[in-house]
């Protein structure tokens, strides 16, 4: 191995990270003071301290509703992988799927998935299922597109070389196409997991009895703006944690996939 370990931070990088924390602290401080000095009512814009107090006071409920939203997100993301990856393989290997299904799939992106949420509510009721479906619909596209791109972008001479060795289609897939596609796929997963959170919350907005989306609507109805902000904080933390978890997957794969390692190096430790 040459060069530093990817997880090792140099002094400059450490300062870089520190700068982010300092900036955030300054923003929060200015926010706090501005609300205080200008006398802005709490139900319009609560101060960070109010939001924090609300989070502590409602910790149990917030955790419970976060759990529901997290499960919906993960289920939607999981389904998008389970359907998206095999479909991408079909698109790459089948002329019919490539010529007919792929253009339809791309065109279908013009449909605002969020607008489908009320229809799903009518069809499926207040269960978690419509939320999972919205999360899936919204996360599915980056999974398919990035997997197709990764699988299809293998150099033609590499494929010729494999043919001359007498490689079977399975050999080419397992030994060349799939490992080659991993960095591109993970980049797609990162986008997908962030979108899945959005899908789950929108599903909850439209109609539900639990989850952070539901809890936010409830708090809004009560003019409990600090609690609304507390929900937003929970969603943000969830999004960051999920995004970084996928980023960690990338680093784990980088141990055997040098291409993924290079991709993560050029895009920062966890990409963006």
């Amino acid at each position, binding site marked *: 191995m*040459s060069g530093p370990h990817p997880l090792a931070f140099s002094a400059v990088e450490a300062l870089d990270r520190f700068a982010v924390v300092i900036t955030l602290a300054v923003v929060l401080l200015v926010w706090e003071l501005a609300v205080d000095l200008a006398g802005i009512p709490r139900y319009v814009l609560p101060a960070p301290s109010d939001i924090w107090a609300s989070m502590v006071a409602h910790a149990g409920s917030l955790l419970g509703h976060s759990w529901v939203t997290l499960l919906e997100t993960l289920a939607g993301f999981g389904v998008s992988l389970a359907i998206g990856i095999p479909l991408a393989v079909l698109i790459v290997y089948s002329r019919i799927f490539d010529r007919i299904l792929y253009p339809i799939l791309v065109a279908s992106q013009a449909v605002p998935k969020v607008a489908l949420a009320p229809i799903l509510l009518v069809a499926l009721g207040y269960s978690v299922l419509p939320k999972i479906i919205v999360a899936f619909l919204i996360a599915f596209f980056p999974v398919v597109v990035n997997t197709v791109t990764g699988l299809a972008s293998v*150099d033609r*001479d*590499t494929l*010729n*070389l*494999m*043919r*001359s*060795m*007498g*490689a079977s289609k399975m*050999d080419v897939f397992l*030994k*060349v196409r799939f*490992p*080659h596609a991993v960095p591109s796929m993970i980049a797609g997963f990162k986008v997908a997991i962030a979108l899945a959170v959005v899908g789950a919350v929108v599903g909850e907005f439209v109609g539900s009895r639990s989850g952070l989306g539901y809890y936010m609507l409830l708090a809004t109805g009560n003019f409990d703006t600090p609690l609304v902000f507390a929900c937003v904080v929970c969603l943000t933390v969830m999004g960051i944690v999920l995004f970084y978890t996928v980023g960690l997957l990338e680093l784990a794969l980088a141990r*055997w*996939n*040098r*291409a*993924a390692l*290079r991709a993560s190096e050029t895009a920062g430790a966890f990409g963006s």
Partner: protein
Amino acid sequence: MTEVLRLTDPAGAAERSDAAVSVRGVSKHFRSRQGDVHAVDDVSLAIGRGEFVSIVGPSGCGKSTLLNMIAGLLPTTEGAIEVAGRPVTGPVHELGIVFQQHLLLAWRTILNNVLLQIEVRRLDRARYTERAKNLLGRVGLAEFADRFPDELSGGMNQRAAIVRALIHDPELLLMDEPFGALDAITRDQMGLDFHALSRQEGKTVLFITHSISEAVFLSNRVVVMSPRPGRIEEIVLVELPRERHFAIRDEPEFARHTRHIRRLFERMGVLKERHGA
């Protein structure tokens, strides 16, 4: 000169029964958006076992197309090709190929890249690991077997690609401008080392290049191709000792061959003197 004439004679070439590669009246047309492209025109060529034959020609003369047709990776439009006496109808597995790019897989170590050839062919990995290490040692990569391609230089990666082409001990090596992406000094060293290695291993080599001196330096015979549609302009028998050293390049014989080929290209209009000179 009679020898050269005999070897350029398509009928004579076709009759050589000991040929490792036999190409008879092969043409290739591509259909493209610009219309029909005539890439290769009526090429006949026989390569004897153990011979080192280079094809030299300008860019786009169809020399790579010819190599791909011999490898069975591209169908011919007209004519027939035989490798080791068997007609080529699909990819030929009894050979090793090296392309201009090393095409090593980024996620495999050098050793595992070499052994990809063994895995795909369902050969005994343990048995060939020994041979792989031996060959890597002979090309100066003994200490780099467990490194990844992005940790090595272009020349080192290309050496590994050559070992990958040799690992299963094929009789025929097809080299498609293998040193074209390397700097001039690395290229000279690679040429000399590869020549020695292929002689030691007793391989038949078809070597494509656009360098006249590289072709003369390495080969028993140099096939000179015309611009598109590529046809064989002349086959030059290189009358130099079998052992090749850098000093050969200073010999009058070497200069005579490169001059002869350069003049062929001048006559075809591929090489032009400066206007007014």
